[in-house]
């Protein structure tokens, strides 16, 4: 019997090593806050964090960055006046800024086996300096490579024991695409439901992309 449900956060996060690349889903909501607290408690170091933004002064992204466990942050923007902005200014955090659509697409590519792609996004900007560009169909395009995670931390509304997931409204955001882009995809789900309870056509993230699920009721 396939059963991806694990009893607690410690079991869910077991095996995360120093130096891991962590994909952290969420955009204002849909962020797996309890898993982040567990990651902080677990103490893994030298992490590369991939998230939409560097966050503010409070919240999961700020907390994991403030813990000093992250060597590098890959995201689409950082507020200068934030934990991430100040760590970067102090030379304590490496930063790779990626346009938001390119960030999502690089992870989708990783999940889809695409080895590289060209996009006009960012091609005529400072972000393209020193990188390979090419004119395709008359447009200047920038070469981008997939962005794969060792671990993805995912938030869901419902999950079953196969790891099929639903997400609430705009809390879906990066969750399905990060789930497909990591070697170990760990989910915190508000509800655990019996196999078959999610209508097949209503699964947002299929269990094939999910390895572990922990029930976090609130």
């Amino acid at each position: 019997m396939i059963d991806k449900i694990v009893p607690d956060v410690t079991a869910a996060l077991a095996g995360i090593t120093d130096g891991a690349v962590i994909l952290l889903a969420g955009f204002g909501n849909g962020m797996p806050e309890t898993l982040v607290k567990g990651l902080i408690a677990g103490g893994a170091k030298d992490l590369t964090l991939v998230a939409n933004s560097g966050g503010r002064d409070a919240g999961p992204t700020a907390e994991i960055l403030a813990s000093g466990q992250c060597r590098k942050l890959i995201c689409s923007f950082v507020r200068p006046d934030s934990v991430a902005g100040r760590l970067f200014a102090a030379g304590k955090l490496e930063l790779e800024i990626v346009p938001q659509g390119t960030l999502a697409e690089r992870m989708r590519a990783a999940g889809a086996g695409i080895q590289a792609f060209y996009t006009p996004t960012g091609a005529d900007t400072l972000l393209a300096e020193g990188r390979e560009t090419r004119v395709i169909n008359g447009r200047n395009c920038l070469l981008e490579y997939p962005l794969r995670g060792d671990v993805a931390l995912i938030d869901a509304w419902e999950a079953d024991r196969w790891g099929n997931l639903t997400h609430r409204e705009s809390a879906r955001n990066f969750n399905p695409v990060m789930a497909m882009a990591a070697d170990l995809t760990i989910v915190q789900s508000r509800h655990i439901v019996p196999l078959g309870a999610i209508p097949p056509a209503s699964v947002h993230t299929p269990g094939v992309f999910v390895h572990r699920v922990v029930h976090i009721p609130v």
Partner: protein
Amino acid sequence: MFRPLDRVGIAARIARDIPEGWFVNLGIGIPTGVSDHVPIDREVIFHSENGVIGAGPAPAPDQVNPYLLNAGTQHITLRTGGSFVHHADSFAIARGGHLDLCVLGAFEVAENGDIANWARSPDEQVKQVGGAMDLAIGAKRLWVAMEHITKGHGGSRIRRACTYPLTAKAVVRRVYTDLAVLEVTPRGFLVLDMVDGMTREALQERSEAELHWT
């Protein structure tokens, strides 16, 4: 004497020009207010890059859904007919030419349609790109909403060439400022409209690029 539009006035002026049926993304800042001025019976579908198709106005305080945010992380509602997608699909919409219109704020626009809206200097260490570069290259039309001159040193944001780092090259179709509406044409900026009381001379004085009138 002329009276400049305030930020709400710029948003309202843009809303007048959006026809029924368009699929539209609104950036942070002045553009966010545009949807407030599109009457509900004019069916314009608003996209928010965190995966919302059919974004509606803010909810009543007792109707807030904590799972429903826009790209500025403000609480919103969903219009009947709206839907949700994940982030990669949402940016496929933005990058794949599916938006009839995107309206962005900017620091500067150049007469060839270059836009600068994410950094005030090449040395700015902390970068705030977000989704602007994706939206700028991907929408069928890019309009910009901004004040005509900067508040600080009074320099014109309507330029022959941008002085700030580019967001994208040759993509802006139209600029709505507090003073005028300018179309980007192969010859440069063509003035489509001015606020009441504005003169050609006064508008040109406030524009670093040469303006065209016909």
